[in-house]
């Protein structure tokens, strides 16, 4: 295990951030049972969370380790699998759950749901239903920072499958050509929907592609939150120091199916079994114990997270639905929502 410069309270905070994500995802999964549509099934109308629900269970260390170094003024764009990133960036957990439940009090007023989770007030500019689409948006945010001479950076998370879409490559070139303050984070969970990404991605992966565009890149064990945090800290320091864009390639694993109702029958159960042994929460707990933290304290952190999430679920259940008017508003100022 990589030696850490992060002191024990730091690690405990990272662990807390991961626990909140894990608890959130578990609760979202539970609330989506029988309801989320995919793989030929149509949403049951009874579930509280509907629509494609992409869980980041097992990938918590990447979100927590990177976002630990971000300020609210920093911008973040994310993917369809964006709950963890959004939580780690500081969004209110309760309002996030409300959004998943489609309630008026959710961040998007129930208009967006899981795939469009966002909290612009903390710089989290949105999850995205289109693979790689968040990447150029973050590039633009970084350019805006540079133009406005703001004291901030931009970060974009994207999956291992996303690196094969053109906009990712365009964005690498663009960020390097303009020397923008942006961190590209490839959250490599080894799968793209039902496809093992390795079979479809040629060459040395995200880091090699970044380097080909003159962007320094680091690869890290994405299940080790300390390693992620340390590496991110250095890369982000470089970016803040005006050294231009950086890329972080973090290897982790998707514990769940592509969406919550996907049983992932296409993958070897042994692969999951092996991956579960590198559960980032287990690894972090071990690191905490190695630092002398008591197991009871570690357990308490997780319990606290579960309690917080349970309360959010209760309040989401009780919260009112959006008014019908919400279907017609927040579209555009000129020529707004009309039937014709």
């Amino acid at each position, binding site marked *: 295990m990589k030696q850490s410069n992060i002191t024990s309270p730091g690690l405990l905070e990272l662990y807390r951030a991961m626990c909140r994500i894990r608890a959130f995802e578990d609760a979202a999964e539970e609330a989506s049972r029988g309801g*989320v*549509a*995919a*793989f*030929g099934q*149509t*949403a049951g*109308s009874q579930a509280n969370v*509907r*629509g*494609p629900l992409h869980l980041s269970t097992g990938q918590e260390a990447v979100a927590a380790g990177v976002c630990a170094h971000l300020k609210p003024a920093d911008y973040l764009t994310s993917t369809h699998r964006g709950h963890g990133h959004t939580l780690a960036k500081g969004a209110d957990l309760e309002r996030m759950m409300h959004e998943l439940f*489609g*309630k008026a009090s959710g961040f*998007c007023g*129930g*208009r*967006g*749901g899981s*795939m*469009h989770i966002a909290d612009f007030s903390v710089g989290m500019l949105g999850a*995205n*239903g*289109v*693979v*790689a689409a968040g990447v150029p948006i973050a590039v633009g945010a970084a350019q805006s920072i540079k133009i406005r001479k703001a004291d901030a950076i931009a970060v974009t998370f994207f999956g291992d*499958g*996303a690196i*094969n*879409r*053109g906009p990712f490559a365009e964005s690498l070139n663009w960020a390097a050509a303009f020397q923008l303050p942006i961190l590209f984070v490839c959250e490599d969970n080894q799968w*793209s*929907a*039902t*496809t093992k990404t390795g*079979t*479809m*991605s040629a060459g040395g992966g995200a880091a090699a592609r970044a380097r080909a565009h003159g962007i320094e890149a680091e690869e890290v064990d994405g299940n080790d939150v300390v390693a992620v945090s340390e590496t991110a800290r250095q890369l982000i320091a470089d970016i803040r120091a005006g050294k231009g864009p950086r890329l972080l390639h973090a290897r982790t694993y998707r514990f769940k199916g592509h969406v919550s109702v996907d049983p992932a029958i*296409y993958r070897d159960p042994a692969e999951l079994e092996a991956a579960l042994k590198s559960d980032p929460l287990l690894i972090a707990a071990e690191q905490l114990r190695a630092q002398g933290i008591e197991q009871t304290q570690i357990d308490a952190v997780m319990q606290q997270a579960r309690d917080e999430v349970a309360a959010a679920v209760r309040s989401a259940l009780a919260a009112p*639905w*959006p008014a*019908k008017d*919400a*279907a*017609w508003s927040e*579209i555009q100022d000129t020529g707004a*929502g*009309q*039937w*014709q």
Partner: protein
Amino acid sequence: MAVMNYAAAAAASLKAAMQADASVVALGEDLGRGGIFGQYRGLLEDFGPERIIDTPISEATIVGAAVGMALTGLKPVVEMRVIDFALCAMDEIVNQAAKNRFMFGGQGRVPAVIRMPIGIWSASAAQHSQSLESWFAHVPGLVVLAPSTPQDNYSLLQAALQCGDPVAYFEHKELWATEGEVDATQRVDIGRARILREGRDLTIVSWSKAAIWSAEAAAQLANHGIEAEVIDLRTLWPWDRETVFTSARKTGCVLIVHEAVQVAGFGAEIAATLAEEGMAKVARLGGPRVPVGYAPLLEAEVRVTPDRIVAKAKALLGR
């Protein structure tokens, strides 16, 4: 004759085409596991990975490569997963596939079928719920199909592969599970509408899922003493003017119904054509010009439901 659902009908149709013609291949993401809607189920086992091609997440190149395949002797079936992702490949569809034959003076052909599932489905929100078929009707070079039943999905996919032109092929996501009889020998010609129900008071012209709902609306209208003729257009380009005109002349009143946004939707083309012919009173019912929201109530608010069709039909008839 067999009963199967709309997704299985497409898979069976593609299987038959691939058996009959070695030049037919399919490409897209996740096809090897049957496609995310099961519409390619079983094909990898039969035809192997060189003909059922799993691709990287590279929409532009999926379509661009299909153009190259089509120009060099293959007939690619291209899976875009949902129409919303086809937006990542519009240059390839419009500038490269549709215009190729003309641009190069007929030296080549692009016999590619581009499948772009449309429609509101299961709380998928603004980026996974669009229906953009009118865009493709606007593009010279493309044939535009939108089957609404398992039989039509079977037969029109056959026709699409046989026609030799690039085809924009729209399946509706809410229809995958619809069951129906499928006769593999039944031909459906491109450009031929189907009369779902006969009637004398009013013509409803529709396609895709909205045609099913129009038939439901017609059943309700019958309870009010209104006999609506329901036409499932099936093909948007070329569209079956003859069937529509004949019905319009008979009923004198035409309502066009589609799920896509009404403004600049394909309903406008039909209504405008009818108006130019001075043939009937016309009205349209399409979706409102708003993005589709996630919450159940927001999604429901923008749907073109049987109830809304009934109300619009009555208004048109002044009843």
